[in-house]
C-alpha cells in the first residue's frame, strides 16, 4: 500500500512542485490507468502489456489536458486551476462510465506472481512483494532522473525560476507539459499496478486520492524524497493500526496529518530551498 501511495503522491507532488497546480484529477487519472490496463490485458492477455501501455496512454491524455486546458490559466488565480482540475474529474469519470460502464472490472496478477510466499510465519502474496520491489525501483529511477540527470536539473531550475530558464533558451512550456504528462503517467502506473489488488470501479480514484494528499502534505509539497518517506510512514502507521485497532486506522492517519500541520506545516521531510 505504501508503495502504491508513493506512485500517486510522486506524480501529485511533482506536478505541484513544478507547476504550482494542485491536481484534484490525479485520482481520476489513477482510475483511468486501472481501466486502461484492464482493457489492454483483456485484449492482449498479457499483464505486463497493460502495466506498460496504461501509463503511456494516460501520459498522452495528461499532455493534452495540460496543453489544451491548463496552459491558458497558469497566469490566473489559483482558484481557476483548482476549478479546472475539478472539471477534469467530471470529464474523465464520465468518459470512463461511457466507455466501460458501471460494472466492476477485474484484473489478475500474472501467473508468475499469483501465489504466496511463506515469510516470518506469514503467507505473503507474491504480487504484494512485487509491488514493493517495483515501487522501490520507480522511486530510485525518479531520484536518479531528478537529482542526477540533465532533465531533472532543467525541471528543478524551471520550477525555481522559470523566467531565468526561459532566458537560457529552454522551452519552459514544453517542460511543463512534460512534467504534467509524466505525473499523469505515474498516476496511471499506480492504477495499473493496483488493478489486481482492488475492484476496478468508478469510485476507486476518490478512495485513494485523499491518502495521497495526506502523503504529499506530510512529505512536504513538491518534495519527492518526502513523498517516499511519508508514503512509508503512512503505510507503516496503517499496518500497525490494522494489527491492533483496525477501526482507528483512519483516525491515526489524520492524527499524523494534523500533527504535521501543527508542528511542521512545511512537511516532515522538507528541506529549505528545495523543491521537486
Amino acid at each position, binding site marked *: 500500500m505504501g508503495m502504491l501511495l508513493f506512485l500517486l503522491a510522486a506524480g501529485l507532488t511533482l506536478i505541484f512542485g513544478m507547476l504550482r497546480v494542485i491536481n484534484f484529477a490525479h485520482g481520476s487519472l489513477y482510475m483511468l490507468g486501472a481501466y486502461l490496463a484492464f482493457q489492454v490485458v483483456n485484449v492482449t492477455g498479457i499483464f505486463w502489456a497493460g502495466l506498460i501501455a496504461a501509463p503511456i496512454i494516460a501520459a498522452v491524455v495528461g499532455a493534452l489536458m495540460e496543453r489544451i486546458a491548463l496552459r491558458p490559466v497558469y497566469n490566473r488565480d489559483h482558484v481557476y486551476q483548482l476549478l479546472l482540475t475539478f472539471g477534469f474529474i467530471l470529464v474523465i469519470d464520465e468518459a470512463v462510465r461511457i466507455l466501460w460502464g458501471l460494472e466492476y472490472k477485474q484484473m489478475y*496478477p500474472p501467473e508468475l506472481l499469483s501465489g504466496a510466499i511463506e515469510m516470518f510465519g506469514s503467507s505473503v502474496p507474491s504480487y*504484494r512483494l512485487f509491488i514493493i520491489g517495483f515501487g522501490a525501483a520507480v522511486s530510485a529511477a525518479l531520484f536518479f532522473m531528478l537529482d542526477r540527470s540533465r532533465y531533472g536539473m532543467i525541471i528543478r531550475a524551471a520550477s525555481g525560476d522559470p523566467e531565468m530558464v526561459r532566458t537560457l533558451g529552454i522551452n519552459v512550456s514544453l517542460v511543463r507539459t512534460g512534467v504534467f504528462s509524466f505525473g499523469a503517467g505515474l498516476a496511471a502506473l499506480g492504477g495499473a499496478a493496483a488493478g489486481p489488488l482492488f475492484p476496478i470501479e468508478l469510485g476507486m480514484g476518490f478512495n485513494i486520492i485523499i491518502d495521497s494528499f495526506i502523503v504529499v502534505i506530510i512529505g512536504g509539497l513538491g518534495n519527492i524524497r518526502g513523498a517516499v518517506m511519508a508514503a512509508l510512514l503512512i503505510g507503516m502507521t496503517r499496518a500497525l493500526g490494522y494489527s491492533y485497532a483496525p477501526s482507528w486506522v483512519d483516525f491515526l492517519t489524520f492524527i499524523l496529518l494534523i500533527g504535521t500541520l501543527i508542528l511542521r506545516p512545511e512537511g516532515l521531510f522538507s528541506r529549505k530551498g528545495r523543491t521537486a
Partner: protein
Amino acid sequence: MNIVKSTMMGVACAALISVAGASPVYADDPDAFKIGAVLPFSGPYGIIGKGMKQGAQLAIEMRGGTVLGKPVEVTWEDSETKPQPAVQKATRLISSGAQMIFGAASSASTAALQGITEQRKIPLLVTISADDKITRANGYRYTFRTSNTLGMEIRMAMEYTKAAGLKKIYAVGADYAVTRDGLEAYSAAAKEAGVEIIGVDYAPLGNRDYSVIIDKIAKTDADGVVLIVTGSDGVTFLKQAGQAGLGKTKTLFGPVLQDEVLAAAVGPDSIGAASGVRYHYSFDNPANKAFVEAYRAKYNEWPDSFAGEAFDGMSWFLDVVDSTNSWNREDWIKAFEGSVRENSVEGRKEMRACDHQALQVGLWGVVEKGEAPYPDLKMKITNVFQPDVLFPECAE
C-alpha cells in the same frame, strides 16, 4: 413602505400558488398511472439502478402496460446514490402527479424518501434497501418493502454457520452503524448457538488494505470468517484473501458478501465464498421461470438480484392497486397490508400489516464455476431458509 408591502404580498402569493401547484388536486379518473422512479444510475450504486429499471419495466410490460385501465407512465430519475438529489427528484415527481414512488437503492436515500412520501401520503415501494429501520412496527404508513432486511440476512448467516458445523468464527465488519449492529446481532446469536467468536475487526468503510487483517485471521484456528461487508469492500477482501490463500483453510461467508456481479469482480478467488442471495434466477418455480425467460428474451442477460426484486415488488404492488379498482391511494395501502402473493418469483410472500415488511424465504448460496449459458462464476443456491426462523415477531 407600500412598495415593500406589496412586494412581500406578491412573493407570498407566488409561494402559495407554487405550493398549491405542487400538490395537484386528486383526480378521480386520471389519464395515466404515474410512477416516479428514483434510482441510482450514477455513483457507487449506479449498477443497481440499471437492473432495477429493467426489472420494473418488464413487470409493467408483462401486464400489458396498464393499471386500473390506464397506461402506466414511469419517469426515471437518477438519485446519484445520494439522499439529497433523491429527495429533490422525488419532490419534483410528486409535484408533477406521481401516484407512487419507486426506489431508492442505498438505505440512506430510501430513508430520505420516506420523509417526503409520508408527508405527501404517497406509497413508496422499496425493493432493495435492507436497513431494518426502513420497515418497523407502526413506523411508516406509506412505505412497503417487498425484499430482504439486513436482520433477516444476518439470521441466515447464523443458520448457515450452524448448518455448516462451524464452531470458531473470526468476524470482520465495515465500520459503520448498520454493519456494527449486524455484527453485534450475529455475535449475540452465535453465543446462544454455542459458536465461539475468536476475533472481531472493524475496518473503515471503503478500506483498501486487508492484508494485515487477513494475516491475523490466517494465524488463528478459526474455521470460518464472517464478513459483514458488501460491495467493493467485499470484493477487495476476497481478492486479497485469495492471493494469500485464506479460503483454502477457512470458510469465507457473509450475509451480503457475494452475488454474480460481485463474484465477477473478484474472479476465481470468489469460488467457495458463501453468501445470502436476495433473488436468484435459478429458484425453481413457475413464476420465476416465466420471468427469467421473458427477461432473457428482452435483455439477453440473466436477471441479477436487483432486477428480480424490482420485478417482483412492482408486479405485486400493481396487482394490488388493480385489485382495489380505486384511484384512492388509501385504498391501495389498506389492500397491500396483509396481502399475500402465492406466486412471487421467490415463492410465497406475505406483506405484514404491522411493519409493511414482506415475509419470505431466505436464499443462501455459494459461488461456483459456471458453464455456458450461465456466467463464468455463478451462485449455487445451497439453502432455502423459511420465514419463521428469519423474521422475529413484530415488536410493539
